[in-house]
């Protein structure tokens, strides 16, 4: 576990801690990601994984610890500032804009940094019109990448669950992130859907080179995609290593055997 931020790290988290009332949800967690890595964050339910995401995006404030993006602290910055600095995420319980179409959801991500002024909005000068046209093109491209182009005009709330998850990924990509946080992208999916998702994420990772941190319970997905995996249990970091190392780590196995919810436990591949 590295506590000295190296210059080549994109995300550095040092001794991150958060207390909720009397409960220590995250306890001195340190992790780091180098640009372009696809890293997994796993652990039994309640381990604090989503809390770590919430801390990174400053949806909640840490009690202690450091979070550095490109070596600079992002503590105390508002979530929208953090988005503009290059961190984007999907949510455990999908948070699409329900009454907006798939297209509009993605389009919103493209506006994360204002590209024309308010005055220009009122009087649609050529500059603003051009920006809108570019946005239109890019939004359709992103939908194409996740194979949702034909659903562009469908209301997000009316899309089937699996497609909603893909749409959330497209929207997260729209903000041109440096770091992509995926919170259980395969939740609720069956085998075939998982395989398709793995293909999609791998393709996105290969073409766009987003640094990605992924929370996931489907072990097949994690082991398949991630180069490195962090394991959290009860708020503390339990282990870190390659998929093979993690699978054979006795402490990890023990932590998961106590977990009744998800039948897909770690299996040696």
């Amino acid at each position, binding site marked *: 576990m590295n506590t000295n931020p190296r210059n080549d790290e994109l995300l550095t988290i040092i001794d991150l801690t958060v207390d909720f009332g009397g409960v220590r949800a995250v306890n001195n967690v340190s992790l780091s990601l180098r640009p372009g890595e696809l890293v997994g964050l796993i652990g039994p339910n309640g381990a604090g994984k989503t809390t770590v995401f919430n801390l990174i*995006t400053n*949806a909640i404030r840490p009690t202690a610890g450091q979070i550095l993006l490109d070596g600079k602290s992002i503590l105390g910055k*508002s*979530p*929208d500032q953090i*988005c*503009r600095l290059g961190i*984007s*995420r999907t*949510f455990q319980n999908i*948070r*699409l*804009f*329900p*009454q*907006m179409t798939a297209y*509009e959801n993605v*389009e*919103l*991500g493209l*506006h*994360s*940094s*204002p*590209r*024309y002024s*308010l005055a220009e*909005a*009122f*009087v*649609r000068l050529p500059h*603003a019109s051009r920006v*809108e046209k570019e*946005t239109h093109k890019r939004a359709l491209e992103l939908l194409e990448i996740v194979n949702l182009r034909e659903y562009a005009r469908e209301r997000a709330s009316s899309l089937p669950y699996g497609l909603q998850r893909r749409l959330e990924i497209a*929207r*997260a990509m*729209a*903000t041109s992130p440096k770091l992509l946080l995926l919170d259980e992208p395969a939740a609720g999916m069956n085998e075939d859907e998982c395989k398709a998702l793995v293909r999609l994420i791998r393709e996105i990772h290969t073409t766009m080179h987003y640094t990605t941190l992924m929370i996931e319970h489907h072990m097949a997905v994690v082991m398949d995609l991630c180069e490195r995996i962090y394991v959290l249990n009860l708020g503390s970091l339990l282990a870190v290593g390659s998929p093979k190392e993690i699978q054979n780590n006795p402490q990890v196995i023990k932590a998961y055997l106590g977990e009744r919810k998800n039948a897909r436990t770690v299996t040696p591949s």
Partner: protein
Amino acid sequence: MGYLTAILILGGINIIATLGVAILTGYTGLFTIGHAGFMALGGYMSAILVKELHVPFPIALLIGGTFAGLCSFIIGYPAFRSRLRGDYFAIATLGFSEAIRLILNNTKTLGPINLGGAFGYMNIPSHTNVWVVLFTLFLALLFAHMFVTSHYGKNCIAVAQDEVAAQMMGVNLLKTKLIALFISAFYAGVAGGLLGFYFAYLSPSFFTITKSSDLLAAVVFGGIQSLIGPFVTAFVLVAVPEVLRALAEWRLIIYGFLFVIVMIFRPQGLLGYVEMNLNFARLLWQKWFGRKLAEG
């Protein structure tokens, strides 16, 4: 003829104020029951500027609107600050509007100016006529449309549907809400000004909770996330009570029941999510023209 003109003028004024509330409540999802207060602020300010300081009428209207917009920050800023949860804004709009009315009721003179307190501000020059209202209405609708179709408008919609997700996607909540609030207060202020120059008289009794409820009703019935819906409803809600005088007494009771019924059975209102755009007009034109061709 004079009767029709009156309906056009009052209807037009109501539409302008309603468009403002549509942007704030219909598009940004922020409940307000206090826009009568902004009408009062804009109305009195423009009237004072023209009557006492002889400022040209159109400029006075703009300053009145801007004044109302700036005053809106008094409640907007404390209420919208980050990490605040709660209906602070909604409650503050009510308190604010009542506070304004109270101050106006109790202020007989403001320095050398005789505001009249509860008796009202009198002898305001009569600048409002049907053409002024129609022209202002046209501008109001145009700029509102430009705003809601721009990415600032889309940010507002995102805030209305899931403000947490919006923030994670880069939307600055405070700024977005303040912009929507300012515009809505500006529109209300201009409408208030037009009202004063029409009646040649302003009284705090014009700007009660009932007026705020009327504006909200037009948006609720007309439709969430729509300009054309509230546009139509705002006019109808002025025209109908005039025509059905007897119904006027029951108006608020009917509105009350309709609010509940609309929310339960058709929360998007009459024309919710329907936006005016060329496509819509084109479709309508094609349908109508196509039918004509088929017949002829």
